[in-house]
């Protein structure tokens, strides 16, 4: 199990497809720090996230270890890893209200119901969406949906964040705003963040170490 304010250690991880090496990463991410993995599509960078989150597609093979605050979670069930996932689409559950999306994510140890609702409302307020609890996700703008997705992942009290091009579908000014929001919140809570992207501006805004992958495949 992971505790909060943790270090995410990616030890000598290699990912291969049909015997062909895609990438190799060896790094440690401290609380509040961002590690950016940059590369073109097909470079295996999203697969790295899937491996760390526990969703690796069986067609890929991976080696190496993942440590969360010194605990080896390489073979943990995805449910026990406490990874916070953000994709390029907000992927809000369309059959639930905005508030129900947050309640689904909130750990069950927070109770009673009244307190759960208060926490969810507060979390919405912290991303600038006060009073959106009962809204239908589909009626929100793209930027608002992205902020709900962020609130949802943070309220689940993750041990670290895995970001898969989470800003690429937002328009330019929303993108800046969202980047700042995500990285500020992560720093504030002290979460290690792994970001994969093909957008250099994302990498620069993140301000941490940048690893480039897949260059040999494309640049030959």
């Amino acid at each position, binding site marked *: 199990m992971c505790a909060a304010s943790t270090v995410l250690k990616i030890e000598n991880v290699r990912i291969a497809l049909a015997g062909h090496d895609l990438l190799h990463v060896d790094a440690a991410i401290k609380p509040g720090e961002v590690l950016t993995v940059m590369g073109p599509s097909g470079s295996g960078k999203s697969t790295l996230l899937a491996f760390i989150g526990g969703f690796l597609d069986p067609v890929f093979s991976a080696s190496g270890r993942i440590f969360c605050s010194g605990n080896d979670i390489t073979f943990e069930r995805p449910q026990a890893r406490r990874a916070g996932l953000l994709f390029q689409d907000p992927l809000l559950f369309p059959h639930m209200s905005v508030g129900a999306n947050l309640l689904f994510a909130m750990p069950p140890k927070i109770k009673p119901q009244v307190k759960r609702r208060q926490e969810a409302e507060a979390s919405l307020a912290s991303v600038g969406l006060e009073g959106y609890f009962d809204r*239908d996700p589909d009626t929100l703008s793209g930027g608002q949906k992205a902020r709900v997705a962020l609130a949802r992942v943070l309220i689940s009290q993750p041990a670290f964040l895995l970001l898969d091009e989470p800003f690429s579908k937002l328009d330019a000014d929303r993108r800046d705003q969202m980047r700042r929001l995500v990285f500020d919140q992560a720093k504030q809570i002290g979460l290690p963040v792994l970001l994969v992207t093909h957008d250099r501006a994302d990498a620069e805004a993140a301000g941490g170490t940048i690893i480039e992958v897949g260059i040999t495949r494309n640049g030959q």
Partner: protein
Amino acid sequence: MLKYAPAFALGILAIPVVSGLAGTLLPAFGYLPALGGTSFSVQPFLDFFYQPGISQSITQAFLIGLIATIIALVLVAAFLAAWYGTRTFRAVQHFVSPLLAVPHAAAAFGFAFMIAPSGFLARLFSPWLTGWERPLDLLIVNDRLGLALIVGLVVKEVPFLLLVSMAALPQTQALKAVQVTQALGYGRMAGFLATLWPPVYRQIRLPIFAVIAYATANVDMSIILGPSTPETLPVRLVGWMNDPELSLRFMACAGAIVQIAVTMAALCCWLALEQIAGAIARRIFKTGVRFSRDSWLRIIASGSIITSALLIFGGLIVLAIWSVAGLWQFPDALPKSLSFRSWSQTLPSLIEPLLTTLVVGLVSVLISIAIVLACLAREQQTGNTGGNKALLLLYLPLLVPQIGFLFGLQLLTLSVGVGASWFAVIFVHVVFVLPYVFLSLSAPWRSFDKRYDAIGAALGASQARIFWRIRFPMLLRAILAAMAVGFAVSVGQYLPTLLIGAGRFATITTETVALGSGGNRRIIGIYSFVQMMLPLLGFIFAALVPALLFSKRRAIRGA
């Protein structure tokens, strides 16, 4: 539990078919101790081939089924080639696809009521155009050549083939290929047939084979529309099987084996035709002829599809009118008066078959959807779809002529003491409902965005919680739609209910078919109306529930 779901499902499909085939084969060679057959002989086959007019019955089953399938596929291919991707196409598609849910018997009666000498079309044009004061003394329905049956089968199978073809067409890239050929100067239809049709055809072969199996071996539509002196092979076989003279069952089983051979011969014939058509097409497209003037052919293509749909739609309306018709003499296009007397007289005897239909339909659908969901959940865990082999097994009950294994299954269920029970009837319905439920649900299930599962799991939700709280509600519309398809299939089942129920389970469909084409038109109207309303209500229910449940959730409440 989930681990065993796929094996369980395949068992449910394969065991009745295989054991039923064996159960047909043994009596066909004279072995059925319960009826005094203790030694093997070819006598049942000899008896069978000595029946008067038997070669004509066989030839008709073979030719009618093959010709109907060819025409239906040609119409569908021509229509897709002519109009795919246009507004006309979408309009016609919306018009045609509901017809898929109309049970065969109701469609056949509606069609008969349209084209019969005293039918609606004749009335519409009489006497002002035709001069007919009395219906022509002409055998249009039940004609000796089986033309009415061929056309009836065509109009019923066109919606099915259209739907499976469209499911096989790749969505976005598709039209680009046609546009490229058009830029090269090819006509729209030629371009489609040269580029998009071959891959589509390869994917719809199994459904086509199922159509051939149904068309060569169907009983319900043949009774209503088919030739009567002699009847087609499957109709005669069922007659013998249900004859009070039990010894006729040996001959019936021998005939069922011949029926399988007839259907297999039609399939082989189809495979040969495939090769010939492919060779001709390759030769033609080598010449570089452009076929650029095809607008007349495109009009014929859409015209024939629309006509076939109108024949069924019109027929269904005429059925409904007949059910409430008062006096309705021949040249009158509409009845002189309306009356609910037939309804009030028929209703008491309608209740019991209706309840049986509902119970069998609902229970078999619930069992099927549970098995299908378990299989799909298992497939998601393992990433193994079972590939073409599993698909072939799924189609097995649809590819083997029903008669071929239902005869044996009836004898088996009777001999082990479960015959004519609710269990046996519902079980045999599941055999036919399950494949359709699986085929309807597997596509939306497999295209579900797996990142939702990933998010659910990362948020700590267990597999069960992910299924019930995320997948199930998000796929509820697709699940209910698949259940509605399954219910429509169950409602329409004639032969399985008749044989496995040993005549003791009357459903709306068995009662409707039993009325035959010579029956009272008002009562036929009532039964056919109820028969076609049941699937329709299922689909309305499937659309309404998510709309009400998720009325405040715009993205998934549907139309």
